[in-house]
């Protein structure tokens, strides 16, 4: 029993970090109505900044106080950059666009840290006293209490600031009704800026303080945003007190879970305690929070002007498919092995992005869980072969069917959740699936991955090890490339054609306006379910191909961060078009473009992520339709001349009718 208490107290450390990030999330939301996914990334940047200043990474060492001071300036600077570079230009954009922008910031910050500091985990220099205190007979490190105390003081301070200061009053007013706030002379831009700066300051400070406990890790730190979002959901993105308390409690719960996992009764996975319990816990907490506090976020009477990216009709579909097919066949034969591999990876990437085209582009729902569904397909395929001996083609068919079913199940449970909330809950689900299922060595691939032997059909090897290997004779085989290509083309034509069908039109009707769609006789729920099913089907196909591609399958390929990156690439390519998906596939991680840059110019893949994050923000600001959409519109404009003259002729006909019209109606 004493140990339970001890672990509960130890959990205050992580809890303080989660609470700090949650406070930042609440601050930004109240100041500008943006759910800032990058708040955890700010804590990470601050942690790294402090580490490098203290350890002499830049060639000089500073004392704790000056280093802390500079770090906080850096954190505030990051906040100012976010505000000026992303949030302010997107003030009138849809909430989803704002969320995507914060995703761009997260990716940029993460890639920057990877580039600057590498992947090795850094032990942050201790900043808090390392002594321990005795609490009811337990020895507890004093830093846990200091951390918890600090975040509580900050929460109380913020609450007081909002309660009594002129600035707090103004923010409360503006977050309730932005238009009315403008009418009384308040500037929403200024308020948003100050709140974002405050949020960065709080997240940065907690990042520095807590980093010594949780270690500096550019993969896990930014993802602390997920438990922080759970805490913020409990606070309805409004109350600092609740956000702080919920954050601390989540930290404690996670620590207790860790304690439980050391017990003999805890379920094990091949001798080790079951992994991913903490992520699963956070996911469940988010579900509970949404049920309890409601799935929709408090509105703020703001002016939303900009619309969603348009969904143009595909043109000359078969011609484009044939040309792309011929080009790829030649490339698969001619390319050296590494470029061949990159091309195959690009094609699979294009398929997974097509699943975003269906669900996000056509139906307007951001679902982060699609890549995890791919993972389910991949692992199912692998386990069918290794555990049940079911191979090609039955194995992938079952795997894809299972995935589609799972996707529909996810959709059924998420039907009432839409927009930004859906993105939040699916992000938590993606993280939970990654850690709980994929990392598990029985269900998933464990640390070493799970094998996926090459597919054979009638004794012919269709996998990367097949004997026909292109001109240079190295693996992977061009035959596997042809298989992937065939699947990509078929799905591409299918998804693009979907836009022309009645189902596609109903999807876009649902995206534009659920109410109006229902009034036009569209069964909104069915359309969403079908869309989720189709999207999961496409994702599942991609997952099986991923499995065959590398002969084995591991959790890292389907991580939540990778999923966020793919969404970014999808936006950049053009999330509403299949051509955009192909572009996204080409620029995604390990695909053709990054590979070429790496090979020819020595620019590593992390640069691609960094550029990707920035490009996402720029895309959202300048051209929400992405590259493919921009291209399409240029063509349209060239064609517009002819149609313009026809329209003019018609409107003059209207004008000619005018006198009769008037005389008929006017008494």
């Amino acid at each position: 029993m004493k140990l339970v208490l001890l672990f509960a107290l130890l959990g205050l450390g992580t809890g303080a970090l989660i609470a700090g990030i949650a406070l930042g999330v609440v601050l930004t939301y109240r100041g500008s109505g943006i759910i800032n996914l990058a708040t955890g990334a700010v804590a990470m940047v601050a942690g790294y900044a402090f580490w490098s200043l203290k350890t002499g990474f830049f060639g000089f060492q500073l004392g704790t106080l000056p280093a802390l001071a500079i770090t906080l300036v850096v954190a505030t600077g990051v906040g100012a950059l976010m505000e000026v570079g992303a949030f302010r230009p997107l003030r009138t954009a849809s909430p989803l666009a704002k969320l995507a922008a914060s995703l761009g910031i997260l990716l940029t910050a993460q890639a920057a840290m990877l580039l600057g500091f590498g992947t090795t985990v850094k032990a942050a220099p201790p900043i808090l006293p390392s002594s321990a205190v005795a609490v009811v007979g337990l020895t507890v490190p004093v830093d846990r209490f200091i951390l918890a105390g600090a975040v509580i003081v900050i929460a109380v301070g913020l609450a007081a600031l909002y309660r009594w200061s002129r600035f707090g009053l103004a923010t409360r007013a503006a977050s309730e009704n932005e238009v009315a706030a403008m009418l009384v002379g308040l500037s929403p831009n200024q308020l948003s800026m100050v709140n974002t700066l405050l949020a960065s300051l709080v997240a940065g400070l907690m990042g520095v303080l807590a980093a010594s406990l949780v270690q500096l890790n550019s993969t896990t730190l930014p993802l602390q945003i997920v438990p922080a979002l759970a805490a913020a959901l409990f606070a309805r993105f409004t109350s600092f007190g609740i956000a702080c308390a919920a954050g601390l409690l989540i930290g404690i719960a996670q620590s207790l879970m860790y304690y439980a996992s050391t017990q003999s009764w805890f379920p094990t996975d091949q001798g080790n305690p079951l992994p991913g319990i903490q992520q699963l816990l956070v996911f469940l907490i988010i579900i509970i929070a949404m049920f309890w506090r409601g799935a929709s976020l408090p509105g703020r009477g703001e002016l939303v002007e900009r619309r969603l990216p348009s969904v143009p009709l595909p043109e000359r579909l078969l011609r484009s498919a044939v040309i792309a097919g011929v080009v790829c066949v030649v490339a698969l034969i001619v390319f050296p092995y590494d470029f061949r591999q990159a091309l195959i990876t690009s094609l699979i990437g294009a398929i997974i992005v097509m699943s975003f085209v269906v669900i996000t582009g056509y139906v307007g729902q951001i679902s982060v869980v699609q890549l995890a569904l791919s993972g389910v397909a991949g692992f199912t395929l692998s386990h069918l072969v290794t555990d049940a001996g079911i191979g090609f083609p039955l194995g992938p068919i079952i795997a894809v069917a299972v995935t589609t079913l799972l996707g529909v199940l996810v959709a059924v449970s998420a039907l009432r959740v839409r927009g930004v909330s859906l993105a939040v809950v699916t992000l938590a689900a993606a993280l939970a699936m990654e850690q709980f299922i994929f990392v598990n060595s029985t269900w998933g691939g464990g640390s070493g991955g799970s094998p996926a032997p090459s597919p054979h059909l009638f004794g012919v090897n269709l996998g990367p090890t097949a004997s026909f290997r292109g001109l240079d004779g190295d693996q992977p085989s061009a035959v596997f490339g042809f298989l992937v290509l065939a699947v990509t083309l078929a799905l591409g034509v299918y998804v693009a054609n979907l836009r022309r069908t009645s189902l596609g039109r109903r999807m876009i009707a649902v995206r534009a306006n659920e109410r109006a769609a229902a009034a036009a006789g569209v069964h909104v729920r069915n359309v969403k379910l079908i869309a989720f099913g189709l999207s999961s089907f496409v994702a599942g196909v991609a997952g099986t191909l991923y499995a065959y591609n590398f002969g084995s399958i591991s959790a890292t390929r389907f991580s939540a961060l990778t999923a966020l990156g793919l969404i970014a690439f999808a936006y950049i390519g053009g999330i509403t078009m299949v051509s955009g998906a192909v572009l996204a596939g080409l620029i995604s991680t390990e695909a053709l473009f990054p590979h070429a840059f790496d090979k020819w110019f020595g620019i590593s893949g992390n640069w691609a992520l960094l550029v990707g994050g920035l490009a996402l923000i720029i895309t959202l600001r300048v051209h929400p339709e992405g590259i493919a959409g921009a291209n399409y519109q240029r063509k349209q404009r060239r064609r517009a001349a002819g149609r313009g003259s026809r329209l003019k002729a018609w409107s003059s006909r209207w004008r000619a009718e005018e006198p009769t019209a008037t005389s008929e109606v006017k008494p």
Partner: protein
Amino acid sequence: MTGGERRILHTDGVSVSFGGVRALVDVDLDVHESQLVGLIGPNGAGKTTFIDAITGFVRCRGHIELDGHDLSSLPPHARAQLGLARTWQSIELFDDLTVRENLAVASHRQSVWAAVRETVSRPLASTTAMDETLALLGLEPLAEVLAIELSQANRKLVGVARALAAGPRLLCLDEPAAGLDSRERAELGRRLRSVVDAGTPTLLVDHDMGLVLSVCDHVVVLDFGKVIAHGPPSAVRRDSKVITAYLGSAAAELTDPSLESADEESRAGASEEP
């Protein structure tokens, strides 16, 4: 007047409350075959709420019948499929679809199997019904234009066309004339008349008394959620309760003698219409 003809919409005691506020109180309203019925009233009288109630977008008490079918417990899309079409005050077109596609969304009848088969079906072929609707509203030249590129007046017309494309038994229009200039309103009024004459009974909600009184066969006036007057436009125009509702009580006292002549004129004007 046309009471002998078939009753398309029949509502009986439709009431809606929001919290403690009673937005609609026992509204009885009938629309008959080939009738254009106007529903008017001052701000907040409950006109839009009434359309929301019969189309299923707000919960209400009372009985709603469309062409003999009881709609009271059906969800919105099911009511739409039974032939109840509506437009919205803020025109809610599907911006990324062309005019023709907007119409196609509405004209589609669906089953689960059809939906699955749909996923591999051929691109949209234009149907004669759709072409007729476009022609009726004079929209043929705009069929392939994206909704987002249309002018306000044309967006309004496409909203009406989309509602019509489903071949509805009853068309409910919520403020189709808002934001149009007088020429466009006149044009809209003419088009609406032809829609009704072509066989679709219509319930028209609009602020523009001029429009409603000049094109409708029958007018119902709401105030504070209650029907305060109904009848042919000429009678409603003269009704002192209506004038009170719109202009305040003192105005009504002044009206009767002075407006009498004006009314004669307008009735004379109305009777010229075919």
